[in-house]
């Protein structure tokens, strides 16, 4: 009797304090996998299944249609403009916030998150209000042959706004943790501010920067809400890939819709793969930092 009670107690001691009984563990893992299957894997497979329903040739043909081509070109153009700009803004913001002390800094840090907390549709509407036909500025812009709303500049502006936080948010915690000492050391060794940035700051943040740029790019190519509002959805002119997908779908061109959706899904897949690879590298580098 006493023996029977002592032995299980000993066994329990041997397990690490945070581990749960096996049954609970497997239940939780099972639940996790079930949710992932229903919410992620199944839809992903459905997308590709639907796209390839009539075979590869048919699917690829739908991508070479002029409207589809225009949408792909526009999406690539918008990403090509917004991603480098936001990488630059993000670095500048992170640099200013982490390397200098100035008034209003706390306020700016909060504002960087604004695009994440505002609904994209509201953001789109703000640009329509500012640059649309109801504002003096909008009228003037149209009169001078530079329409913003229902044109490519509006799409670029909306995408810039939506994707602004990605790079800055990736960099700020990392740069805060690294502090200013290395930069100051470089200055005492005679380096100019620019040289310090290029030879010390940038190499120290390169993985985090690349990671932020990847996330920024994925969102720039995938943004729907804000772009839908400012673009006017003019076929072949202001229709980006996500908008095109919706149009195809509404027109019962489901192979075309799902093929293009598949292209975006592949982009997400590539982004996630690169991101994991980077986290792997970057974890290494962070560990090295902590050993300092």
């Amino acid at each position, binding site marked *: 009797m006493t023996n029977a009670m002592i032995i299980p107690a000993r066994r329990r001691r041997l397990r690490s304090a945070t581990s749960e009984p096996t049954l609970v563990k497997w239940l939780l893992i099972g639940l996790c996998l079930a949710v992932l299957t229903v919410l992620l894997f199944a839809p992903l497979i459905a997308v590709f299944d639907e796209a390839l329903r009539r075979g590869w040739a048919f699917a690829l043909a739908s991508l070479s249609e002029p409207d589809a081509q225009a949408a792909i070109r526009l999406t690539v153009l918008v990403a090509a403009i917004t991603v480098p700009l936001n990488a630059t803004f993000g670095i500048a913001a992170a640099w200013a916030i982490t390397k200098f002390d100035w008034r209003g800094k706390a306020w700016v840090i909060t504002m960087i998150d604004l695009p994440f907390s505002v609904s994209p549709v509201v953001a789109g509407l703000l640009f329509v209000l500012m640059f649309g036909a109801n504002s003096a500025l909008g009228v003037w812009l149209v009169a001078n042959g530079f329409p913003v709303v229902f044109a490519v500049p509006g799409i670029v502006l909306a995408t810039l706004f939506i994707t602004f936080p990605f790079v800055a948010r990736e960099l700020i915690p990392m740069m805060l943790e690294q502090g200013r000492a*290395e930069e100051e050391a470089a200055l005492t*060794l005679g*380096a100019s501010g620019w040289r310090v940035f290029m030879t010390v700051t940038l190499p120290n943040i390169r993985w985090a920067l690349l990671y932020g740029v990847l996330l920024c790019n994925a969102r720039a190519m995938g943004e729907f809400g804000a772009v839908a509002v400012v673009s006017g959805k003019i076929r072949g002119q202001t229709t980006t890939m996500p908008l095109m997908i919706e149009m195809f779908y509404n027109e019962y061109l489901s192979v075309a819709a799902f093929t293009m959706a598949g292209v975006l899904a592949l982009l997400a897949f590539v982004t996630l793969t690169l991101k994991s690879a980077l986290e792997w590298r970057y974890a290494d580098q962070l560990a090295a930092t902590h050993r300092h």
Partner: protein
Amino acid sequence: MNIEIEEISKDFGTTAALLPVSLSIPSGTLVALLGPSGSGKTTLLRILGGLEFPTAGRVLFDGSDATGLSVQERRAGFVFQSYALFRHMTVFDNIAYGLRARPRKSRPTTPEIARRVTKLLELIKLPDIGARYPNQLSGGQRQRVALARALAIQPRMLLLDEPFGALDAKVRKELRHGLRDIHDTTGLTTVFVTHDQEEAMELADLVVVMSIGRIEQVGKPEDIRARPKTDFVREFITA
């Protein structure tokens, strides 16, 4: 090079880190700034190095006003509290950094840079670690690499912030002599910050005892020991 500090004060917003302090450091002296945490030692050192600018007062180097000189123009070899080695560069590249940062016309050639880095590695008695990265070094090795990196620019003075603070007791003792040797070889005016009175007394030619933003006493170690000027000094050096 002799350093003259004239009525330097420094405020950070509403807190006064340094009340007006004055200090005269003869050329070639090894000086310890000694005081408890928060007494303004780092602030004074950073003002000398040009990393911080005083709210009022002047700094003179060899008699000429250096208060407005930029960090780069000061040419002070600065060793930071946790060494601040460039983590993504090898030891060799760390030491060569200052030479490579020079404007083209005064920049040494690549073989000349290699020669100087090799010499500095010998000076710090670590000739074989050029290819390593900072995270592959021990604390004591890092400190010496930081010292070599600071010396590479042929500085006009050497400024060290708690150079032994991050080391264990045994290494501390060894490296004290290392610093003394390097000071004696180079003849550089050297200022180091410490909160350890034994370290200051053993190593320095001149000890500057600081309390909150104030210089309490300046003197040779034996004079300070024999005749502490204030209660604060007496308590601090016997603690």
